[in-house]
């Protein structure tokens, strides 16, 4: 899973704004960030680095097989 978890979110939306690929959105009920479109994560960590409370944990793994240039 790309973004592993969001723990301790304060709902400031920094990660939503900072994600180049629109992976994270705000949950309208809890007003906290949720991983909405994990397949589009490019594992760049910008969300984690912009998060003021360091709430985001990352994983280097992609949950779907990826296409690469070599076999």
């Amino acid at each position, binding site marked *: 899973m790309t973004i592993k978890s969001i723990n301790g979110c304060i709902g400031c939306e920094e990660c939503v704004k900072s994600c180049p690929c*629109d992976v994270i959105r705000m949950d309208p009920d809890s007003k906290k960030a949720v991983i909405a479109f994990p397949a589009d994560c490019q594992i760049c960590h*910008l969300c984690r680095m*912009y998060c003021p409370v360091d709430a985001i944990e990352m994983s280097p793994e992609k949950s779907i097989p990826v*296409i*690469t240039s*070599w076999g």
Partner: protein
Amino acid sequence: MTASAEKSTMNRREFIALTAVATGELAAFGMSGWAQNKLELDPDSVTNTDYVTDVLVVGGGMAGLFAAVKAHDAGASTLIVSKGRLGSSGLTPFAKGFFTYDPAVESMSIDEFTNAISRSALGTNNPVYTRQLAEHSLARAKELREWGFFDQTLANRPFMVPIQERGIPLIERVVITHLIKENGKIAGAAGFRLDAEETITIVAKTIILCTGAGAFKPNGFPVCDLTHDGTVMAYQIGAKVTGKEWNDGHTTRSVNPAACYDNWGDMFNRIPSTNGVEVHHDLGVDLNYRAYVTGNPVSGGPGGGPVTEEVAGGPFVPEEFQRDFGPPSGGPPGEGDAPGGRPDRGGGPPPGEGGAPGGPPGGGMAGSTMGGASAGMAIHKAEGLVPVDDRCASNIPGLYAAGDALGSYMSGGIYTQIGSSLAGSAVQGAIAGEAAAEYAAQSKVPAIPDTRLKEIINDILAPLRREEGYGPAWVTQTLQGIMIPNFVLYIKRAAMLKAALAFVEELRDHHAPMLRAANMHELRLVFETRNMILSAEMKLRASLMRTESRCSHYRLDYPDLDEENWRAWINIFKGDDGSMQLEKQSFDSWPLQ
């Protein structure tokens, strides 16, 4: 039944089970192919907001920042729209080296520097833009320093400093899908918001595309939000496009190849810094050639050790720029901001590059090196709109481009000067901003007929209105499967390029028009997918046309330089019948207007 038959039956059953699991997972991630559109919003309730501006800057990276600031300072009302956040989208957030030519420090004159680039680029660079980079880079670095860019890892806050000081309006998370041309000139643009059920139309006297380059949403390079949006939108209204045959040669790791952050060492954590003259000829495609010839695992390839023997043939590096790469050392990744650091091509072969991240570190990381991390992207500043002058203007009056969206050939068809990618975007953004403001001062506010706007909005919302269709993520994956293998994109030959072209034409004609979107996120994916398909077609046609090998373009069937016929760039444009046309433009010349 024999044991082996039993085994194969079991394997088949296992295979079916696995496929079912995989399909379920893919469907859960919106990866399904043709399916019902489970709409999450009512397309008929989508509202529209309109804006008017002198200068519209599309894109919020390094080029967009300077374009907006300089257009504003030149007296034009300026609006920035960005698909992401200012300083946190495209390649800008990951570029840590900023080239500056400081006459007080450098031993090379600007003329000598420009000539060195031309020699490394085998003539593919446009010396006017190369020189411009050297002349303006120090001034841009000074401004960035004042805004705090060289004080922190993340660019958003420093970028916001001049924007807030000047009160330049900025709309983030807007996907621009259409450029609008009226009476042969730029009249505006249209798109939609990611966070609201809202389309946006903008009347603009002039537009500066700072939309970056693009790729095929590859794994291992943080370029998945760049899909050649600017280039393709401009192509659709008649702009000329260039540079599609070149290839950026960034590498990744065979273990977790998609993990950009992890595979770049501490690159993404670094604070940007400046560096001086350092001219190279860094290919990247040479590794793909090695993997192609010797198979996998190969030396330096997945599962392989350090490179020990030479492979005959392959891409050509001018003798002056050949580098003796030592054994893997786990040294600095790339070299963008670490002057003196060398990419270690033994265990990890980064075509070290300053603007965007260099290459993964050689040793110590999990897995071995693998090519094609940035698949679909050309050399920085080589692909994009064809400039008709030295001020970033395109062949469409009022349309400008800067940075990776402009095919300025600042570096040529090969990455030459470390750190020039970021610096070049700053320099060109500033020049385009001033030029656009000048143009705007002399033109009237364009009028766009309501019927035209209505037509465009309908076009934007069409994928939401489809009751069923192809999922954009699935079409993108299919495109990746056609374009990313190294025997298509990097090690080229006519038969393979033609085969790939047939697939891509199929996607263009029968999939792109039938893409579905259930929400604004998927709507973005639809337009990105369409843009990538057209860019793939451009890449294949340009690669077929260039019947030689030069810089980062390598043809197995034409392995040598052809100085007689190919001292020329390839321009691509939409013909009168809507088909893709290609033409040559000699090096050192401007297009015929």
